[in-house]
């Protein structure tokens, strides 16, 4: 087990470094520096600015410095567009928001998805099952940038129940629609995976044995069926995390929630390279860490995997 964890770490750390290197190489190869503008600055001024941001040093030194800063001090450097704030300020401002509705969405997706999937599998070929399958197919074609306007249309413009955007410290009424919009398609995927996995498990020999020795249905499900059923769901959590954190960009734009996605897109329009890169690296690090945890959890739960 420990060997496995160490081996996974040995992959995860280079992955993060590769991500930083790719982002940095992309940024460095950008045509024109970050401070080039329509009206060229005097050479002396340019030299001063470049010296201030350390852009006059060799690339390798800049990159090593950046990586060192991120790893040791968690410092993503200054913003290239706004002199009064650093990338860390941006992250500190936006990340708690993203984390709040992201965590609620993940919770909703897992709880509702797993319950729906199990219920559908236990009542195979019933009305409930068809309903669940219908919902999952429907939700597949409703990505979050389609869900968001539809929700605003219904709940804000027609019914007037919920505010159409904003955050205000995360009052529940500002959180509901982002959570629904972000979680629906993952909820559907989780329900689908749970259903097919549960169907497979319920047809297996050890469940037949448990039924044969006279256990009541709920004990069969809770004691025997649920753990193997959830294994595929757990391995889906990795991709789902990537999807959700990507989806949060749309949520931030659609509902003006002020999470990191909003800063990300604004910086993309402002060509604020350092902020885009900082957020990319941060999200990459989070994803890789999360994947690592999922893999470890999976290896711990699944008796078939022994390293």
């Amino acid at each position: 087990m420990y060997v496995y964890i160490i081996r996974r770490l040995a992959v995860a750390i280079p992955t993060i470094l590769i991500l930083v290197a790719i982002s940095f190489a992309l940024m460095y190869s950008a045509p024109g520096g970050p401070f080039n503008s329509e009206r060229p600055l005097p050479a002396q001024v340019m030299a001063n600015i470049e010296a201030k941001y350390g852009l006059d040093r060799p690339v390798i030194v800049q990159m090593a410095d950046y990586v060192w800063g991120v790893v040791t001090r968690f410092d993503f450097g200054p913003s290239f567009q706004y002199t009064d704030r650093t990338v860390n300020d941006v992250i500190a401002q936006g990340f708690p928001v993203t984390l709040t509705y992201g965590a609620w969405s993940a919770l909703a997706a897992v709880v509702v998805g797993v319950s729906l999937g199990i219920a559908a599998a236990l009542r195979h070929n019933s009305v409930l099952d068809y309903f669940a399958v219908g919902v999952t197919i429907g939700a597949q074609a409703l990505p979050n940038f389609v869900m968001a306007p539809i929700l605003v249309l219904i709940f804000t413009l027609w019914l007037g129940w919920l505010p159409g955007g904003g955050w205000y410290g995360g009052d529940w009424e500002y959180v509901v629609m982002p959570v629904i919009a972000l979680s629906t398609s993952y909820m559907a995927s989780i329900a689908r995976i749970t259903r097919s996995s549960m169907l497979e498990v319920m047809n297996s020999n050890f469940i037949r044995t448990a039924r044969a020795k006279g256990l009541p249905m709920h004990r069969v499900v809770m004691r025997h069926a649920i753990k193997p059923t959830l294994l595929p769901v757990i391995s889906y959590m990795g991709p789902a995390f990537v999807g959700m954190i990507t989806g949060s960009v749309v949520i931030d734009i659609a509902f003006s929630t002020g999470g990191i996605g909003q800063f990300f897109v604004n910086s993309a329009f402002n060509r604020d390279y350092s902020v885009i890169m900082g957020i990319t690296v941060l999200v990459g690090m989070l994803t890789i860490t999360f994947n690592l945890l999922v893999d470890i959890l999976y290896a711990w739960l699944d008796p078939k995997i022994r390293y």
Partner: protein
Amino acid sequence: MAKHANPDADILDEVQEPVNEQVKGRSLWADARDRFFKNKAAVVGLIVLFFVTAFAIFGGLISQYEPQTVDFSLMGAMAVNGSPSIETGHYFGVDFEGRDLYARVVQGTRVSLMVGVVGALVAVVVGTLYGAIAGYLGGKTDDVMMRLVDVLMSIPFMFVLILMLVIFGQSIFMLFLGIGLIAWLDMSRIARGQTLSIKNKEFVEAAIATGVRPLTIILRHIVPNLLGIVIVYATLLVPQMIIFESFISYLGLGVQEPSTSLGALIRQGTQQMNNGTLWMLAYPLFFFLITLFAFFFVGDGLRDALDPKDR
């Protein structure tokens, strides 16, 4: 089949069914076609897809306006004068700048379909070859190649792609490149898995014994046998690519004016939602949704028909 007194008769039936099908001497493709056409949802999806494609290709012929032309006769009062009507020739109304929405939806559908199909095609070619090579060669090469896929998969590519779009400028080419870069990963895993189960079959052994070169074996003997599963996942990749492109266009970072895509049209419709011009959202959204549904149903139907695993 004779009735069995055996309680496992059901299981026996299941086991023997495929054998019987082969005995009839019909090709596997004919079987697959029959299974596909028995699936009503898939057939409906195919018909819808046919109409959407026809709409994207020939829809421009009955349009009264060019997609880029602003209709100044509306005097800027889009919400009042620009609503959908047959008389003015704006079948779907106009967009927020007074351009004919029908012509723009035709154009957007065309761009979205093209991105979807080209993206999936790139993914299929690269992914299948990569996966087949990794699976066939096996051993260390396989380890390294698939580990690279694992590493790439754990990077949130949307962010890297947006970084690329910002740095190298937004163009359709960059979009294709970025989408193609990401989409082949899943495909390569599927192709590899399938290759592993094929490569020990007798016909591959025979090819090796007669001294065929590895690359030729992969192209002539392995890849054709991957086709079924590749077609299935390619069909399911197309809607994913469409969603992907629309996602970026929704953020305003994808297809640029004067060109448009369904995602960009949905974005513009959303921005005008408060002004009582809901048709600007409704028409692009409608075409977006039916296209996705059609692809999903056709893909599911193909999977039931072709994928040996999911039956």
